[in-house]
Structure formats: structure tokens, C-alpha cells
């Protein structure tokens, strides 16, 4: 149990180590959230053919009825708010993921050189930082768009 507590504290409290540590935590959290949503989404969209018990083409009206029941169940402000948060997660994870993909291949990172005090790390280069903040900004924009779509706040 203390193994789990230690792990969660290290992973979920990215304090005092700079933005890259925050990006590490957020990438993990958003990844897990998206995967859990993915499970729920595949199960929920399975209702378009009538549910889990259906393994051959069902009657059209049966499928339509089950889907409409599902649609009504999902038309819930709590779920819509959750989807807005998910929009943030998806966009952050995607753009940050592209940043990480580039970094893992050494693209956009600085070159090694002779370390001069005060040692500005080339790995935490300007393009990297720009891409990180871009992912945050795009994620917030996606969340605002989602809130507008589900709650028609901004009439975009």
C-alpha cells in the first residue's frame, strides 16, 4: 500500500520541478481519463444496434428504441460537463503527445555544448516550451468550444 501511496504522490504532485514535470503528470492523467472514457464510449455506442446481447442484425425498431433510450440517458448536464473536461484532456494529450514525439527523436531540442553557468538546459528549449503552452491553450479553446456546444453559452 505504501508503494501505491508513494507512486501516486510522486506522479500526481508535480511541484517545484518546472513545466515539464507538470506536462508529465497531465499527460498521464489525461491518458488514463481518455482510455476510461473510450471503454464507456464503445459500450455506450454499442447500443445503436440494441445492446450487448445483440450479435446478429436486429429489428430496426428495436435498435431505434434502445438507442433513443440511451440518447435520453446521456442528455444529462453532468455527462456534458464531463465531455467538456474530456475535450480539454484529448486536445492537451494530443498536442503534448506530438511535442513528446518530436522530443523523443531529438527534434526541437537544443544541441549539447560546453556547460556554462547558470546552465540553461538545452532539453528545455524554447520550441519545446512554446509547444507545451500551445497544447494548454488549444486544450482550453477546445473546452470552451465544448461548453458552448453542450450548453450554448457563447452562441458560437
Amino acid at each position, binding site marked *: 500500500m505504501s*508503494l*501505491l501511496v508513494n*507512486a501516486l504522490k510522486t506522479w500526481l504532485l508535480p511541484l517545484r520541478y518546472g513545466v515539464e514535470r507538470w506536462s508529465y503528470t497531465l499527460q*498521464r492523467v489525461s*491518458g*488514463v481519463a*481518455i*482510455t476510461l472514457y*473510450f*471503454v464507456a464510449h*464503445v*459500450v455506450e*455506442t*454499442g447500443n*445503436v*444496434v440494441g445492446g*450487448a446481447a*445483440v*450479435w*446478429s*442484425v*436486429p429489428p*430496426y425498431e428495436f*435498435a*431505434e428504441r434502445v*438507442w*433513443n433510450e440511451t*440518447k435520453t440517458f*446521456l442528455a444529462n448536464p453532468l455527462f456534458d460537463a464531463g465531455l467538456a473536461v474530456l475535450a480539454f484532456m*484529448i486536445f492537451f494529450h*494530443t498536442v503534448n*503527445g*506530438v511535442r513528446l*514525439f518530436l522530443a*523523443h527523436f531529438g527534434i526541437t531540442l537544443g544541441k549539447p555544448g560546453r556547460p556554462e553557468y547558470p546552465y540553461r538546459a538545452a532539453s528545455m528549449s524554447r520550441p519545446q516550451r512554446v509547444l507545451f503552452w500551445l497544447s494548454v491553450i488549444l486544450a482550453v479553446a477546445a473546452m470552451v468550444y465544448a461548453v458552448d*456546444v*453542450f450548453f450554448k453559452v457563447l452562441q458560437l
Partner: protein
Amino acid sequence: MKEKTIMLLHYITGLGIIIAGGVHLATVFLLSQYHLSMEFDNHPFAVLNVYRNVLLASSLEALLVLVAFHGFNGLRVILQELYQGKTYTTAVNIMVFVVAAALVVYGTRTILIAHQL
């Protein structure tokens, strides 16, 4: 499979998801409106019409497989970083594969049957 190969697939599926996911989000939010795309049948981008279109249904199938791999591999990485015992590692590998495979089977069933409705 070597960890290096799995990681490479993780990058590739990630990039693939950007494309297939982009198509999916476009059909739901941009090409139509959200509440219209949730309808069963009576709209060009309603749920069944998306499944009936071979291209869109294929991209949904691709998205299913790509997200299942990318997401569950991610979960596998996180779980295996927690503890590294031999039994635990094998158990996580099997569990993750089984759940991902089950989801892909279930999702494919949805796509195939809805395509014929």
C-alpha cells in the same frame, strides 16, 4: 515483442489517431451539429448514416483499433511502472491485451451490424 517495437507502434498509433480521430470529431461537430449527429437515422450525419458509409465506418474501425492499442499500452506502461514482479508483469500484459481485444471485438460487432441496419 521487444519494448522498442511496442514503443514505435505507440508513436505510430498516436499519429494515426490524430487523423482518424480528426475525421470522427469532424463528422460529429463540424460537418453537422452535435445534437443532430446523435439522431438515429433522420439526418445525413446521423449515427446510422455514418455506419452505412463505407469510408466513415472504416475510419471508425481504424480509430477503434488504434485507440485500443495506444490507450491500453499506455495503461500497461503505467501499471508496470508501479511494481516489477514477474507474475504481476505477466498478469498485466495478459489483462490489458484481453480487455483491449474484447473492446475491439465488441466495437467491430457494432460497426458491422450497424452497417447492415
